[in-house]
Each structure stands twice: as structure tokens, then as C-alpha cells.
């Protein structure tokens, strides 16, 4: 696996370039020397929908565009600027890095999400970042359901140098979380990251289990979990809204991480999520390498999504 060093912005742009070219290429196609009329507006709305922005956000952005410009000649650069500023306005309030308060002793982070979203990989990357920053990190292999999930986290733990608390497959995940927290307290750990099994948000019994994990943790340490993160797959469509809604209700999600932005998926549903739930977006995953987890930056995300204005 190549791990050449690139600036994170370059990486982000490389990761987002496909979404960018899809949207901005289309924008250029529509607006080069054209009047802004109902037809062009509809096409623009379509293009935003293609980016998984969702019908509501796409409608709002196109409305903002048409406000003073309807029936006027408009250049594609102007369109991109308005697009970017609209999207950025939605995203800026939610672009917040994950704040670790080491006074928490430990700061407990609970990772949640549907199956295959990338929870375990994200934990590996996060742990690496914190360990590099001089923190003492412990991992808890709370996915006691899926075959070899424990081994997967164990390998990440070995790679980044973090102890991993495990229990045999089929064990009670809440009991494991409790034990891990106990160990983390006695061993004076700074950050405890707890993995959980992937679960679909409409599976009531599995969501109840997640609720139990949260309760058990908060009983052991007041205020914990300090962060409960929902990992979203960028390829997911409008269903991400359901995921945020229901995980939020059951586990009091405090922030989002979006993974797999290095594909051709646009991840535009993040904009819809931001508008609807106003939950902080902490980071994005732009690749499989350990350093491919990047802080979320609203302006850059928006600019990358609609194309650079100076281009």
C-alpha cells in the first residue's frame, strides 16, 4: 500500500475531485452564456440532486440562485459562487473538530453506524492521530457479533500501539464496554474508543442494545460517553437522514463522520443532514491509508463540491 505524503488539502481535493467534476462540469454545461429561466433552473436542481444533496436542499439552493437573477444572463462562475456559498452557509455551523477533554479521564468516544459504514477503520485512524498527539488511547472491541470483528480491531490496535479490550464473540457488548471503561479508569487512559457492531437503525432490538451500552457507560462514569459518533458512508443516499434521525434518538449522537469520500460518491447528503439535524461534522475519510481521516472543513467541502471559482 502506498503511503506517500501529500498535504491533506491535496488529498481532500483528490478525494473530492470526482464529485467536483461531476457537478461543476454540469454547471458549466448549463450556464455558459445562457439565460436563467425555469428550464435551466430545473436542470440545476437535478444536478444538485445527483450529488445526493436531497430534494429539499437542491430546491433551496436553486431558489437562492434565481432570486435576483431570473431571466438574466449568468456565467457559470457566478453560479458556482452562489452554489458554494449556499452550501457553505449550511455546512459552516456544523464544521467542528472533535474536542477531547482529557480531564474526563478517560474521554469516552462511542462509535456507531450501520453495517459496513467503516467504524472499525475509522477508529484505527482516529487512534493513530491521538497516539501521535501523545495521548494514551485504549480501544474496546464492542462488535461482539460479526465474525472476526474483534480480530480486525485487534490488528488496528497492534498497528497503532493501543491496548484493545476484547471478549469472546457473542458476549454482551454492554458488559464489555463497562469492563473496558473500568480498565481505562484504573490504567489512567486519556481516550477510550468503543467500537460497536454495525446495526440497521430500523432493527428495534439492536437499537435497544445500543441504548443499553450508552446507559451502562453513563452509569459507570458520569458524562460518558462524551462523544457518540455516527459513521456515515458517502455512498449512502437519502437513507442517511433516517440513520441520523434514529441513531440520534436512541444513542444521542453528538457528531458525524463521513467515510469513503474517495470514490465517485458525492456525499451531498451530508448537506441535507446538516440542514436538518445541525449535528457537528467532525471528520471525513478520503482513503484507506491511516492518515486519510481529515478534519471537516465546510468551505473546502463546498468549494470542492461545486468546483473552484478560480479554475
Amino acid at each position: 500500500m502506498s503511503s506517500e505524503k501529500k498535504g491533506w488539502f491535496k488529498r481532500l481535493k483528490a478525494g473530492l475531485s470526482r464529485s467536483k467534476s461531476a457537478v461543476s462540469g454540469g454547471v458549466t454545461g448549463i450556464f455558459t452564456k445562457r439565460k436563467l429561466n425555469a428550464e435551466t433552473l430545473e436542470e440545476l436542481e437535478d444536478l444538485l440532486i445527483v450529488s445526493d444533496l436531497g430534494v429539499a436542499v437542491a430546491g433551496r439552493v436553486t431558489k437562492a440562485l434565481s432570486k435576483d437573477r431570473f431571466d438574466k444572463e449568468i456565467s457559470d462562475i457566478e453560479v458556482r459562487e452562489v452554489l458554494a456559498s449556499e452550501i457553505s452557509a449550511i455546512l459552516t455551523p456544523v464544521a467542528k473538530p472533535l474536542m477531547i477533554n482529557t480531564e474526563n479521564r478517560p474521554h469516552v468516544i462511542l462509535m456507531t453506524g450501520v453495517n459496513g459504514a467503516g467504524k472499525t477503520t475509522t477508529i484505527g485512524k482516529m487512534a493513530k492521530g491521538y497516539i501521535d498527539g501523545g495521548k494514551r488511547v485504549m480501544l474496546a472491541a464492542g462488535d461482539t457479533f460479526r465474525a472476526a470483528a474483534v480480530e480486525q480491531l485487534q490488528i488496528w490496535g497492534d498497528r497503532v500501539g493501543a491496548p484493545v479490550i476484547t471478549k469472546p464473540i457473542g458476549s454482551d457488548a454492554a458488559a464489555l464496554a463497562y469492563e473496558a471503561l473500568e480498565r481505562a479508569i484504573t490504567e489512567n487512559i486519556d481516550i477510550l474508543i468503543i467500537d460497536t457492531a454495525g446495526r440497521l437503525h430500523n432493527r428495534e432490538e439492536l437499537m435497544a442494545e445500543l441504548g443499553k451500552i450508552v446507559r451502562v457507560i453513563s452509569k459507570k462514569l458520569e458524562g460518558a460517553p462524551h462523544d457518540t459518533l455516527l459513521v456515515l458512508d458517502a455512498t449512502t443516499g437519502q437513507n442517511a437522514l433516517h440513520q441520523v434521525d434514529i441513531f440520534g434518538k436512541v444513542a444521542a449522537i453528538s457528531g458525524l463522520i463521513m467515510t469513503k469520500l474517495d470514490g465517485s460518491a458525492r456525499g451531498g447528503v451530508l448537506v441535507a443532514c446538516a440542514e436538518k439535524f445541525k449535528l457537528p461534522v467532525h471528520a471525513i475519510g478520503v482513503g484507506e491509508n491511516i492518515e486519510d481521516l481529515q478534519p471537516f472543513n465546510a468551505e473546502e467541502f463546498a468549494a470542492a463540491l461545486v468546483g473552484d471559482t478560480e479554475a
Partner: protein
Amino acid sequence: MFDSLSDKLGGIFDGLKRRGALKEADVIAALREVRVALLEADVALPVVKSFIDKVRTKAVGASVLKSVTPGQQVVKIVNDELVAMLGSDSVGISVDGLPPVVVMVVGLQGSGKTTTTAKIAKRISEKDKKKVLMASLDVRRPAAQEQLKILGEQIDVKTLPIIAGQTPVNIAERALQAARLQGFDVVMLDTAGRLHVDTALMAEVQAVRGATNPQETLLVADSLTGQDAVNVAREFDAQVSITGVVLTRMDGDGRGGAALSMRHVTGKPIKLVGTGEKMDALEDFHPERVASRILGMGDVVSLVEKAGETIEKEDAERMAKKMAKGQFDLNDLRDQLRQMKKMGGMKSVLGMLPGMGKMKQAAAGAQMNDSVFRRQEAIINSMTPKERLKPAMINASRKKRIAAGSGVGVPEVNKLLKMHMQMAKMMRKMSKMGKSGRMPQPGQMPPGFENLIPRG
């Protein structure tokens, strides 16, 4: 969260009374709503456009049946066209041919390849009676090969021994060789997750394809996928020419528009759908179900309820099977009590047992009471594991301890033990009758069952 298409179209056609035929203007207004509904269901835009064109041609001039509203008529046309586009004939996985037949599974990271590989292997080995060998070519994700190995042990399907440091092509070749030498009919190759835009990794999977010449190359895709579904399907098809799609996580509440997108851009059938984490949660693809889901006509709540029902039914069937074997200790009795609590009483359980009609009525008459079940469960919970396995060892002093532990009197413990004894006896009898081919008389209440009904 989504309004159903029928509601929306109802709104459009509210002003219109019944007409002889659908006018173009009405159809266009209706199709605007259809377009939004499809987009909200994550059908990819180019697919939506081509679909709308088709429907427009069909709908304009179509006569409105007397019994329905124009809105309903449009929904019907849309639904029929959706089903047709999704593929009206169900296509299975082909594993016949000169062994070893190779089935390769490809897809993005986290789409559910490994789980799907094991589910398909289980299905082929059980339903088609084929000897299956599974091999994981995923040398990238930590513990991926281990995962397939564990699943293989669970479903009793052989996996290729893991040798560290081999390339995917090496592993695939080794799997084929092992299959030839050991007489396997089918080799399932589980590949690493990869992005369709990752040229290096796509070249790798092409190399595997070239080395093994798979009869089936299945794209495993998440049914929750958004607009990107077209790109993923088109690229995988163009680069490794897939033979079909397996959609995973259909037990989620996604609207499943990806199914239509993928089918449309590749022309390849959707062969199977994954509907849960259990190894047998793999079903044939039903276009009509997905069509109503995409249109938001199937009520999510009722779907969830239906799923819940099946789970309970499975539980009850498992229990009935256990009873038929004639083994019955106090653990089994406790399981039963729990099941009954979960299923909202004994009536539904009894309904599944043969010859219990009369019993069912008796149960209904006695007004089943959950608190009785809870008390009985508490008594069993107060026993040691040994006592539960061998109720005969429960002497007077043990009874006292159990009674104190569960907050009841000794007579109640006696009653429970008596009930268990009679039931165990009945189980043995029933299993013997089963073996000799005699079924219990219809309507005859087996001894012991009346004790289950709380009195007073």
C-alpha cells in the same frame, strides 16, 4: 419522512373529476411528482429520466378505469413499468457445469461481500447439494480472511487454508487447484472491497478473473446506495463484466432505488437480496416488492411488523421441533415461558402445534396472564443450572431455597415441578408417537398442558 406517491398524486388530481382518458397536461403534472418520488427513493437521475419518458408515452391517452381515480391509474402504470424494468423473471445463480464452477464476488468496501459469500455458499451447498469451497482474496482489510473462515465453520462449508503473504491471484489459483484435487463442485471467491475508480485494484480483480474464468461474477451492492449506484454498477460491469447483482441490507428501511439504477445501467439481473445478518437471510429478488417500496406505497411500519412476525414464527417452530424430539428439561420450560411472554401468550404457540384446537379455546377462556409466566420463570431462575438439568435432585431443602429466592411458597414450586414432569412425560410420548407414525388425536389435550393454564 417520505410522503407516499399515492398521496401526492391524489393531491394533483383532487381538482379533477373522473375522465375518460388521461390528458397529456395531467400526466405531465403527475410525472413531475413521480420524478421527485423516484429521486427521493435514490433512483439515479438518468434512470429517472428514461423511466419518465417511457411512462409518459404509456400514460397519455390511457383510459381511466371506472373504479379508480386518475391518480391511482397513473400509479398503476408507473408501478407496472417499474416492475417490468426491474425484471419480471427471477434469475438464480448458475452453478451447473464442469466443476469446479467459479463464483466471484466483487463490490465496494463495506457492501457486505463476505457475509453474502457465506450466505450464497450455504444456499448452494444446502439447496443445490453442491460441495462448495470458499476462499477469501482480501489481503487488505485486517482479519477479512479470518472472517470468512469463521463464517465457513458456522455454516459448515470448507474454506481454503489461509497462507499469509500470497497475492489474490495466487490464492485464487490455489483455490482452483484444491477444488480440482479434492472434488469440489463450486469455488466461491470473496474479493477485497475496492473502489471502481481505483485503477490498480480494478486491474487486480481483472487478473483474478482472467486466471479463474468465473461462471458468475456477482456485484454486491448496498441497497441504501444513493445516486452513485449508476457509476458503481456501470464501472464494475465495464471492467469485470458482472453476471448479476446482489443487493444487501434490504432489511433496512431504504427505498431501494439503487436496484432500479443498477439494473437499468447494466441490464444485468438482480439475482438475490440480503435481508439480515443471519446466514439464511438471503432471498430471491421480487421486483413487485421493490417497486412498491420505491414508490413508497409499502408502509414501512407494517413491513417492520411483518418481519417481527416471521422471527417469532421461526422461534415457535424451533420450539415445536425441540418438543418433538422428546427432550425437555427445566431450561426448555423456561425458554418456552419466555417465548410465550414474547409472543403475547400461549395461543399463538398452540396454534402452531397439531391437534391443539381445543386447548387454544381453553387458553382463551382462562384469560392468560403474563404475571403467572413471570412468576414461573422466576422460580426456574432461582434454581442452579444443575437443578434445571436434573429436576429429580430437587429435594425439600432445595425447594425451600428456591421458593425463598423467587418470592413464592413451596407449593408453587411443587406445582411448577409437577407441571414440568407431566409435560416431559407428554413430550416423550409425543416423540414416540411421532416415530411410530401415529399422530395425537385432533382436539385431544395432552396430559400436563392443562397445568399451564393459570386458574382463578
